[in-house]
């Protein structure tokens, strides 16, 4: 039977529905321990309760603020440092080893350090999201610029372009594609940073709620939160994809 690729989503939806129905039936038939695997309806109820009571908003707000602030500062700092390092050898000498080191370790281990330095408020989470994103962006931009075709550079030079023109017309557009490519990863990193930071020590946020759900064995709440974070990240991926398509329309 030939599968029409345009209807793939229909088949995927059908498969998902069947899985959820089997899951739900197994839950109701007491084949699954709700302490480990709550049924879809219980997870749904937890989700409805979160929004219905309005309890979720301050937490969503906190996590979003932290992740987006960390993402924004991380992207800007990462790009600036990457461009500087690629153009000024002295800066590359000083920064690259630090970045390589930061890239080699799992950066979330810095979370406790940031909590001690900046307290359990929003700042320590922004810092964690920032450091995750900035290192990624630095390497994206740094290697992106170093891989720019020499011929394009020579062309601009023979047309009378100086260093600033090279940055503006060659280097930045050339790294734009790789930056946009890693934007999705960066969004994931930013939410990782925010949630892990909240997990370690916080009084608000999705990570804090998760850690609360874990300590009270509220599995339905836990799955509801995981689902929520998934949806949030997917929505942001969608926006990043749109942006990528628009900015890279020459390709």
């Amino acid at each position, binding site marked *: 039977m030939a599968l029409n690729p345009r209807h793939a989503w229909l088949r995927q939806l059908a498969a998902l529905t069947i899985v959820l129905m089997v899951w739900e039936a197994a839950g109701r038939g007491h084949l699954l321990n709700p302490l480990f695997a709550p049924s879809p309806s219980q997870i749904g109820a937890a989700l409805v309760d979160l929004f219905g009571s309005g309890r979720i908003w301050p937490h969503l707000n906190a996590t979003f603020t932290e992740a987006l602030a960390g993402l924004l500062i991380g992207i800007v700092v990462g790009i600036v440092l990457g461009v500087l390092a690629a153009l000024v050898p002295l800066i590359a000498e000083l920064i690259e080893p630090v970045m390589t080191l930061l890239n080699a370790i799992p950066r979330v281990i810095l979370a406790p350090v940031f909590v001690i330095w900046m307290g359990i408020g929003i700042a320590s989470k922004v810092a964690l999201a920032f450091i995750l994103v900035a290192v990624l962006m630095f390497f994206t931009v740094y290697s992106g610029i170093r891989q720019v075709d020499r011929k394009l550079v020579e062309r601009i030079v*023979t*047309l*009378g372009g100086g260093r600033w023109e090279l940055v503006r*017309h*060659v280097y930045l*557009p*050339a790294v734009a594609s790789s930056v946009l490519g890693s934007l999705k990863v960066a969004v994931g990193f930013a939410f990782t940073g925010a949630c892990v930071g909240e997990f370690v020590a916080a009084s608000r946020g999705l990570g804090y709620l998760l850690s609360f759900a874990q300590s009270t064995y509220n599995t339905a709440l836990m799955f509801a939160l995981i689902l929520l974070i998934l949806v949030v990240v997917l929505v942001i991926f969608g926006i990043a994809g749109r942006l990528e398509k628009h900015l890279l329309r*020459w*390709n």
Partner: protein
Amino acid sequence: MSLVGPSGSGKSSLLRAVIGLQKPLAGTVETGLAPSEIGMLFQDDALLPWKTARENVALGLIFNGVEPPRAQEQADVWLQRLGLAGFGHRFPRHLSGGQRKRVALAQVLAMTPKLLLMDEPFASLDAIVRARIIQEVATLVERERISVLLVTHDLEEAISLSDCVYLLSQGPRAHITHDYRVPIPRPRDPVRARMHPAFAPLYEKLWNDLSREVDRDQRAESTV
């Protein structure tokens, strides 16, 4: 004026030195021209892929202080002159090899250079497109009175386009071993120039001298 010679005789290096991409190890390059009066056409049409044809052509003008809206207008004029009217909004990816070469030409010519350097500019084109572009370049260069220094492996191209052809010896320490005047009158159509009675004898002489250069080099190699 054309430069021909075996590979490795430093033809490209010479052009790069003239335009300042490469510093000569010794000596200086004297053109009597400002850098903005020298243009260079490369073998590959390294256009910026993220800029449209029009934006690519306008680039050099903008670098030299022309206001962007005016530069875009002039870019359109040059695109039109090279037969690309209506292609200004296309990105290089959506142009054929010949069209990209024309955009690259428009980009250089829009700067109204007094000296145009060309480093095997037509090597990557197919025969018919190549002949057509060469004709157009010859016409434009004659009309705008631009001096041209052409580096090529193609002796026919060298003779049909030039007034003077210089033969470089095998490198390292390459030098000019022969120079030839091309007695075909101007204005000249480079395709028809090949049918001029002076063409064949000059081609034969150039070919013999060039072969001797290459042979000498191979003998030198085998004695080492």
